């Protein structure tokens, strides 16, 4: 069954209590951030903390990512070496603009895996696409190598580079946000929508998250525990949807037994894609439970 990545909870790597408390909210994924959330003078202590935490804390089913500093910075390469050695198996690479950016990390990871006796290809990559160039290269980035399991859209840096600002109805993000899920889907990987910064505006967050689901994102970035719950509600199939799906599957199974090709459920024609969708919905409902 495909892994759920509905929520990507960001936690600064600098806070000991977050390693313990973030699990309370049961996100699908957690990103411990060594990059933007950490000041220059604390980059070393954040990295040490993340490494020790990964060795000691049981994260259960939660997928744990480390957002490393850019490989061009003075910290990035050491980040990758140390955190993978400590046990991190998923890296979020910031500012991916091209296939080459991904391949650079890919190569480094082969080296680190070999030095640490980790089977080659184990460590996965989530590519953060945060610039116009990155958006335009989204398909190449998503298909760069088989380590890539998701591409995420970062609206803050995107709008900054575009020399515009984030607005409430997100006109400036239109193409980018619609393109990313397409590119991801074409390659068969996940897509993650951007962060909503206003923690007090839950209504605005919900609207953006609903839209993200509607345009095909697999999940949404969260910066506050209460956002996680909201996203899970939005991504959960509703009771009606589940009931309908059950009827469709039942009808399909009966039709198969009788050798009937065309099926009608509630007066509507049901064919292969609809049956597949019903199966997906039931699978998702079971996964969530």
């Amino acid at each position, binding site marked *: 069954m495909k892994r759920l990545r509905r929520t990507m909870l960001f936690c600064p790597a600098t806070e000991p209590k977050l390693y313990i408390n973030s699990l309370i909210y049961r996100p699908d994924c957690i990103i411990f951030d060594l990059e933007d959330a950490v000041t220059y003078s604390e980059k070393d*202590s954040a990295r040490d903390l993340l490494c020790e935490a990964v060795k000691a804390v049981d994260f259960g089913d939660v997928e744990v990512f480390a957002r490393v500093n850019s490989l061009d910075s003075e910290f990035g390469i050491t980040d990758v070496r140390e955190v993978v050695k400590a046990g991190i198996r998923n890296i979020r690479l910031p500012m991916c603009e091209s296939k080459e950016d991904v391949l650079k990390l890919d190569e480094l990871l082969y080296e680190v895996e070999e030095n640490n006796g980790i089977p080659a290809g184990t460590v996965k990559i989530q590519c953060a696409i945060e610039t116009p160039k990155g958006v335009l290269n989204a398909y190449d980035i998503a298909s760069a190598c088989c380590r890539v399991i998701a591409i995420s859209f970062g609206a803050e840096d995107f709008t900054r580079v575009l020399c515009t600002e984030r607005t409430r109805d997100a006109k400036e993000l239109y193409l980018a946000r619609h393109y990313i899920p397409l590119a991801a889907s074409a390659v068969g990987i996940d897509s993650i929508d951007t962060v909503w910064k206003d923690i007090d505006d839950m209504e605005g967050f919900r609207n953006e998250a609903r839209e993200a689901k509607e345009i095909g994102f697999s999940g949404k970035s969260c910066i506050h525990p209460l956002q996680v719950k909201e996203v899970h509600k939005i991504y959960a199939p509703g009771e009606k949807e589940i009931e309908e799906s059950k009827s469709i599957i039942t009808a399909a199974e009966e039709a198969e037994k009788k050798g009937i090709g065309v099926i009608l459920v509630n007066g509507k024609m049901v064919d292969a894609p609809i049956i597949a969708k019903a199966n997906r919905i039931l699978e998702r409902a079971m996964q969530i439970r």
Partner: protein
Amino acid sequence: MIGTAGKESKQDCLVKVDLRKEGGLEVSLTSSVGKLFGNQIRKAAVEAAEELGIKHAFIEIIDDGCFDFAVKARTKTAIKRAGGN
């Protein structure tokens, strides 16, 4: 050579390491949960120093309910900042 890491705050600790030439590893602990976890906290600090190959240091910890992994991390950072690597 002195290095400091961490901070005085809930579920965190402030670690100050003074690397020296002799005297072994000595830990001084002030903790709000000392009666319950004092020994484990001290052990974590010593383990951290040993993992970095440090044999002699005075480690001062001010703790407010910090977990062992964070004590270890802060101790390692403090040692590295003190130049011990």
